[in-house]
């Protein structure tokens, strides 16, 4: 009852505040479009497995470029490819050469193709039959026309939803305190958990709309690659949004004004970009890597990529979704406790 009153009030306030509404719904679309237009690839060192029936040629390849590693066992190689330890497998079985690319990351795809081409060319004079070889290219995930944005997109969608929901919900909850209405509410029989639940539900309704708009825009207008089901993507973005919502309202308890709330962005939101998988975590210093486990965006970004690029289903993403639900619940409980600062009961 009291929670419902709060939800209704939040919806009414939100609808009046056209600018915040626009920031939540349109700003992410604008930025995603810009990134789509602007982004171009960069250097990348691929890991390529060589499986060959002609031993000397394989050794030649391995010697020519550090990217190549000989695998005796082709099953082992494909396992590693599936787990993203490898970027590609090159199978040499004269007269055919078959290249299988992991394919999720277009930058890696390009790098693999360039390395292979360059190495084969450099070996050509010494090799007996390279010119007679026909090359066949296969993709484990993705396809040849995948662009960089297809790879970054899933992370960016997750990130922008996280960012805007965090900011808007945090500032709204903060404003409840600075305008004195929080105190006024605490003079009513409203319980602390009812207040937190009201906020999560009230904003939750808008985050559902937001997730649906951003995901649909990315898929249908920006034409981002979409291998899995759109419903899973909306589910993941929604879970990310609820996590951001509960974290934003929680952290607003530790800010005195809007500016201090904004100061949480470089502390809480920006670091998540680096750990979310947008950049390669494997290339980071070892002791830094575990930090990615406590960042909600790590799980959101991973699940988004599993669905959008690798076409994964519920079995692939349920663990990430559960972790996000766990984060949300934790932040909500902490928020109920943080409100104790204002009223013991």
């Amino acid at each position: 009852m009291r929670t419902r009153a709060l939800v209704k009030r939040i919806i009414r306030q939100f609808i009046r505040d056209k600018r915040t509404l626009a920031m939540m719904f349109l700003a992410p679309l604008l930025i995603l479009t810009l990134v789509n237009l602007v982004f171009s690839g960069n250097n990348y060192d691929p890991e390529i497995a060589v499986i060959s029936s002609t031993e000397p040629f394989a050794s030649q390849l391995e010697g020519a470029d550090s990217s190549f590693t000989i695998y005796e066992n082709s099953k082992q190689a494909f396992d590693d490819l599936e787990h993203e330890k490898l970027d590609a497998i090159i199978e040499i079985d004269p007269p055919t050469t078959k290249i299988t690319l992991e394919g999720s990351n277009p930058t890696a795809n390009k790098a693999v193709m360039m390395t292979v081409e360059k190495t084969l060319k450099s070996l050509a004079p010494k090799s007996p039959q390279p010119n007679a070889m026909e090359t066949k290219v296969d993709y484990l995930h993705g396809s040849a026309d995948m662009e960089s944005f297809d790879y970054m997109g899933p992370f960016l969608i997750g990130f922008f939803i996280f960012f805007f929901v965090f900011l808007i919900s945090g500032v709204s909850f903060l404003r409840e305190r600075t305008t004195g209405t929080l105190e006024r509410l605490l003079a009513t029989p409203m319980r602390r958990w009812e207040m937190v639940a009201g906020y999560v539900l009230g904003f939750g309704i808008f985050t559902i709309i937001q997730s649906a708009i951003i995901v649909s825009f990315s898929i249908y207008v920006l034409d981002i690659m979409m291998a899995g089901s759109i419903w899973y993507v909306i589910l993941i973005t929604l879970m990310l949004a609820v996590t951001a919502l509960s974290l934003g309202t929680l952290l607003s308890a530790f800010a005195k004004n809007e500016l201090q709330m904004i100061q949480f962005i470089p502390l809480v939101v920006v670091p998540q970009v680096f750990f979310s998988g947008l950049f390669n975590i494997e290339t980071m210093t070892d002791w830094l890597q575990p930090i990615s486990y406590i960042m909600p965006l790590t799980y959101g970004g991973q699940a988004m990529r599993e669905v959008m690029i690798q076409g994964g289903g519920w079995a692939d993403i349920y663990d990430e979704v559960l972790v996000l639900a766990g984060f949300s619940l934790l932040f909500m409980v902490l928020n109920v406790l943080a409100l104790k600062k204002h009223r013991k009961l």
Partner: protein
Amino acid sequence: MSSVIQVLDVSKNYGSQPVLNNISLNVERNEIYGLLGPSGAGKTTLVKMIAGIETPTSGNITVLDTAMPNLYNMTRIGFMAQSDALYAELSGQENLEFFASIYGLKGTKQRERILHTASLVNLTDFLKKPVHQYSGGMKRRLSLAAALLHEPEVLILDEPTVGIDPVLRQSIWNELYKLSVAGTTILVTTHVMDEAEKCGQLGMLRDGRLIASGSPQELKESTTSATIEEAFLSYGGAANEN
């Protein structure tokens, strides 16, 4: 029948900073009790503790025979905060609907109470307007209406008449008298001396201590003062000499 509000030996510190020092006071049923004191005296802290928002560092507060803070009791208390705790984006009507729903008022009963309290504070014609277009006085009145919605037995008002014009102030006081006759116990804070005269009982608060209490008449007589202000100075001065 014991007093409606009983404050016994209450002290409050914020960290090492003492704000209130051994306050004891009783407010009887139907009484209008005024807490008079300059800003910074601790009035707001005291009424917040009585309303159940803050908890005392030591001492006890009982409202309607229940120790505060108590969530159920909060449905029997109406509280009007010093700052206008309103949602500026919403209309007056929507603000009142929100607070009414929180107190569990529904349907016809809710509409009746909203119309009634809005007419009490002369806001009936402005209910559809968004609150950010209200004047300061209108906001004060809307806050008062919000505190009256659930027909509380105890009404706690923190500086209710700041920024309200004299005519309206008079009409609000008339309303408070009516509520008091109808059985509501009212605790009101003020720093305006002449407003204090309107209260049945008065507590004078200065630097976190209750320097005097009694009816305005008693306080003036015992200090042979012509006005409450003189009486306040007399008590305050005496306290300073110690």
